[in-house]
């Protein structure tokens, strides 16, 4: 397959970026999107040019490292997958593919297609955990209703990729924060700190320059793990009750 790639190139965080156009040929339909970029980079290196910087790690859809806004969609044209799970057979031969970094004030571009998602780590550090003192108890000693466990696991499947922020017209991190708050609030171990957690994480999210939620549902449409806005409703509930108790 043959493609024309329009790729965002930016030297560093301060530089002004622009699109570069590259032609690429001889790509098998079974090549993954990131492998296609590897081939492009190999060609660039051979030509003595600077390769394109992009994030990736596990390449099996579980780490949340890969990103990329491809032809107007986070993680490209397929539903509920990460960019590393996207294959070139999803495109037509001869397509022009525009590749942009995640765009949001809270995720500044570091280089080319790489953005700094450290803001997510800071939100997690603010309260996205369970404080355990002493010996870790055996997980199976506390019975948990299946429905609660399921809901918790659905939310826990968030891999922190940031597609929700990238897609949201407000650059809001509500789906990410909701996934954390919801997955822990549904379990007895996480319940104890639920009120403090919701308040601390929302305060951090607001402080770091993420936008607020307009309920457009764009985040859940692009989330590779199918986290739904029902979790945002729970976050709103947890947060408002916590504030009312104060």
């Amino acid at each position, binding site marked *: 397959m043959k493609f024309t790639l329009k790729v965002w190139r930016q030297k560093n965080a301060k530089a002004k970026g622009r699109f570069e156009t590259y032609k690429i040929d001889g790509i098998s339909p079974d090549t993954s999107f990131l492998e296609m970029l590897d081939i492009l980079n190999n060609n660039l290196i051979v030509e003595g040019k600077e390769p394109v910087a992009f994030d990736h790690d596990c390449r099996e859809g579980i780490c949340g490292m890969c990103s990329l806004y491809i032809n107007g969609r986070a993680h490209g044209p397929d539903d509920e997958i990460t960019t590393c799970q996207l294959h070139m057979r999803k495109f037509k031969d001869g397509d022009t593919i525009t590749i942009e970094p995640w765009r*949001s004030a809270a995720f500044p571009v570091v280089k080319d297609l790489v953005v700094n998602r450290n803001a997510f780590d800071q939100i997690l550090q603010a309260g996205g955990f369970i404080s355990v003192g002493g010996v870790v108890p055996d997980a199976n000693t506390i019975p948990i209703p299946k429905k609660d466990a399921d809901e918790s696991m659905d939310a826990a499947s968030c891999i922190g990729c940031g597609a929700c922020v990238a897609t949201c017209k407000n650059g809001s991190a509500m789906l990410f924060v909701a996934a954390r708050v919801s997955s822990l609030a549904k379990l007895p171990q996480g319940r104890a700190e639920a009120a403090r957690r919701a308040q601390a994480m929302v305060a951090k999210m607001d402080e770091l320059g993420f*936008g607020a939620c*307009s309920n*457009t549902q764009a985040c859940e449409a692009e989330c590779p793990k199918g986290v739904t806005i029902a979790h945002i409703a729970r976050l709103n509930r947890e947060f*408002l009750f916590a504030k009312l108790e104060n």
Partner: protein
Amino acid sequence: MTSLLFSSIGKKLIISLSGLFLLIFLALHLLLNLTALIGPDHYENVCSFMDTNPLVKVMVPVLALGFIIHILFASYFEFKNWAARPRAMSYAVPTTTKGVSWASKNMFVLGVIVIGFLLMHFCHFWAKMQLQGFLGREEANAYELVVNLFSKWYYCVIYIVWICAIYFHVLHGFWSAFQSIGLSNANWLPRLQLFAKIYAAVIFIGYVSIPVCFLLGWHK
């Protein structure tokens, strides 16, 4: 309390509560308007009831406050959101994400359209009726005002455009308000979205039926 009001979710709570209050007002206002179709006498009766009832007198400033709070918080909320995704950071390829309603992305623009026509509505009705009464002068005859305005086709068109903006604002706002307060989950979300469609349709058909009936001469 202040930490609640200045948090993103707290601001949205205020927008939701004031928005729900305005939704109730829209339905009540519609009921009053519809009496104009039954005949001048009924309409005049309702108008004089509204003029003299003490509860209405109390509710008028509350309503104004509801509008002001909704508009101020909604504007502040929007400005903060623009800062989180500045224009310079927009994507070269416009988003192609499916399943995002047009209304949900344009609530602010719709709101501004609603304000624009609201001011016009004030000049046409409120300034000639309630304001005159307040100043101790003779009030314009309400029914005559209605007949006059709705006999002009272009006024009817402007009015219907206004109701369209309200329709889309309500279509998203109705369920969005419940979601923002936290009164929603996987089961209730589709139901709330259905109620929103029904409520918005009732508001739209109700309000639009008045100019349409007057234009077609279907009123008593």
